[in-house]
């Protein structure tokens, strides 16, 4: 795995350089972007940030842990729907039922919606719910030593199942249309540009926070152990660890991050629907991570932002060809630069002095 081969720059990026990179990104997202972008573009960037948050988690689980999590849409959806349910209830007002239940059903609300009236409960649920689901699923899958392609396929099947379930439960979750029309966000009017900027800042801030978590984990013993598990799972067993537990932690962390991303996506995009969480959406997240560099610190986040931007920009200019671009992206990146764009600067950097060295060797 050349991605993780320790070139000096890569090593540096894991330590101080990584922190510097995060600081620069924070500066760009939290200070520069709000100053130069229009409200509309800033909203778009906020959406990309939500995907980036999920991508950071994928970088942890896939890049560092070797688990190709092809169904992160599930967790993105859990967070997104939890938040959206709260916002719908907020819009409906105390004691009232969300509008769509009146339209599609008989106007009664299922009991499990009730707790989401509480903002505090919702915030807790956005973290705890995906963690629990990931724990149960991960435990079941990883303990049986399901890995590699099997893991990926089961994961994707999960995303398909989840989206189908959402579509099928139209009276409870809005079905294919999903949940939309959120006038307020914890009391803040969502039509007000100032508040939109605030929500953007929260999303960007959460992205930075997730990056800091991953940066820290990367430096910790756990980070080493995770990479070790990816590269030689059996060997880790003989260090006295159960590799399943190590991977489980990364899987759960990735799930929580995806959920946080989804939770911010709902108010920023104004909608969360099955098409934001299905297999295709999950794969788009993977595309960003692959592009940026699965095993690098900033790569997944930047890659996700780039893919989000590319989707907006390319679909504006070449509306019929976005699918081709997306497909080509997978083919070119995975085939030619499997370690992602993040691997290019260190590679170039490493290539330069080596040429000098070989010349020296030749003259010797």
């Amino acid at each position: 795995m050349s991605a993780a081969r320790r070139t000096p720059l890569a090593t540096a990026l894991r330590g101080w350089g990584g922190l510097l990179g995060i600081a620069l990104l924070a500066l760009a997202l939290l200070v520069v972007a709000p100053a130069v972008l229009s409200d509309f573009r800033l909203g778009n960037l906020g959406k990309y940030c939500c995907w980036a948050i999920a991508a950071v988690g994928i970088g942890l689980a896939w890049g560092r842990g070797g688990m190709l999590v092809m169904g992160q849409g599930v967790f993105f959806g859990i967070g997104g729907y939890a938040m959206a349910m709260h916002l719908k209830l907020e819009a409906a007002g105390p004691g009232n039922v969300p509008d769509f239940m009146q339209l599609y059903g008989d106007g009664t609300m299922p009991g499990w919606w009730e707790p989401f009236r509480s903002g505090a409960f919702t915030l807790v649920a956005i973290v705890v719910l995906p963690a629990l689901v990931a724990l149960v699923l991960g435990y079941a899958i990883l303990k049986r030593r399901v890995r590699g392609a099997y893991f990926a396929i089961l994961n994707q099947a999960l995303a398909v199942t989840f989206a189908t379930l959402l579509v099928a439960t139209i009276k409870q979750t809005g079905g294919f249309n999903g949940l939309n029309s959120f006038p307020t966000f914890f009391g803040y009017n969502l039509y007000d540009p100032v508040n939109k900027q605030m929500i953007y800042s929260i999303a960007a801030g959460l992205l930075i926070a997730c990056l800091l978590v991953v940066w820290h984990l990367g430096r910790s013993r756990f980070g080493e152990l995770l990479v070790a598990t990816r590269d030689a799972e059996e060997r880790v067993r003989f260090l006295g660890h159960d590799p399943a537990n190590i991977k489980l932690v990364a899987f759960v962390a990735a799930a929580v991050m995806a959920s946080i991303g989804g939770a911010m996506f709902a108010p920023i995009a104004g909608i969360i629907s099955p098409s934001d969480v299905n297999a295709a959406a999950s794969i788009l997240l993977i595309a960003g991570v692959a592009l940026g560099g699965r095993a690098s610190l900033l790569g997944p986040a930047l890659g996700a932002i780039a893919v989000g931007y590319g989707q907006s920009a390319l679909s504006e200019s070449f509306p019929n060809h976005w699918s081709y671009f997306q497909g080509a992206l997978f083919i070119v990146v995975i085939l030619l630069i499997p370690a992602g764009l993040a691997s290019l600067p260190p590679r170039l950097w490493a290539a330069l002095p080596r040429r000098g060295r070989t010349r020296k060797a030749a003259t010797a």
Partner: protein
Amino acid sequence: MSTSRTRLAASTAAALAAALVLSSCGGSKSDDGSAAAADSCVDTSGDTIKLGFLNSTSGAMAISEQTVRDSLLLAAKEINADGGILGKQIEPVEEDGASDPAVFAEKIGKLLTSDCVAAVFGGWTSASRKAMLPVVEGSNGLLFYPVQYEGLEASENIYYTGATTNQQIIPAMDFLASKGVKTLFLAGSDYVFPRTANKIIKQYAAELGIEIVGEEYVPLDSDDWSTQVAKIVKAKPDFVFNTINGSSNVGFIKAYYEQGLGPDTSPIISVSIAEEEAPAMGKDVTGQFAAWNYFQSVETPANEAFIEAFQAEYGADRPTSDPMEAAYTSLYLYKNIVEKAESFDVDDVNAASDGVSFDAPEGTVTIDGENHHIAKTGLIGRINAENQFDVVWSSEGPIEPDPFLEGYDWWDPSAE
């Protein structure tokens, strides 16, 4: 030593990030949750006026929505050739909704706040409309939505030029009642429109004395209908009410034939199969029925002109269909409202819209200023061997739009 420094740096960075987040939280908390209407940025000073055309030109819905885009562009071209709106040439700003509701929401925001268009035309799926609704209300913009839908909605900022349920579903039921249908089987895709439509159908059927002998849903993208069709065979209904969407119809019609059903045993009435979709099912669909407000075969002078212009522009093999006609009509209606209001301002437009009419290909349509829908005539067509629709039944004149079915006392929205 070095590690403690690192920790310090880490916590500082974390604190910094947190501070940034918190400081940016200084949002304004307005108490009235209503739309703080943003000032319109529409530029009406020049001799052109920008209009947004927002349809999916990529993704699953592209093939349907592209036809809407085509007729919008045709209408714009005709209007421009005729002197424009209030003397201003239409400058279309095209965007792709990519068959994804979230993208529709994003793009309509761009069109209204960044491109500053005077109005947006487009949307197809209910999901796309629902996603655009808060955005268009939030920025007090205008959206013209050209597709028949499940009703139960009326927004100050949206004009609905397709049918609402009392202009398509209810006429279809009236047609069935007129044919003496006693038993009905409901088959639909598992999403909003079929679910809502069937809720209405079931209540109206009870009123009409028609028995519902089965109700089946299949996921949107599923092609396998054999199990459900076996249930139809078993139920032997007088008619099948089909609310299946898109390509899923092909598998349904195939399974229906294979198991020995046909127009003479248990005929189908569809609300999503039009001139565009029928050829995909070939001869299998011949003899079946569809409920719309427009067919290519409608004989009006306006329709003759429309078909001629459309085929001249896009090719003689191109059929015209209900949503295309509704989109074409929507742009002309907008022109007529604006010219009545003598203003592009949204509030002025809304104030002037009531009673504005247009001699559309389907016949004369008139806007209801209360609910922003238009009065339309209900038509039932029977599919012939050329995959065209022969009109076999029509409502008595245009039906006033009633999106919330307030005029129907059998309707109980909270009943299951």
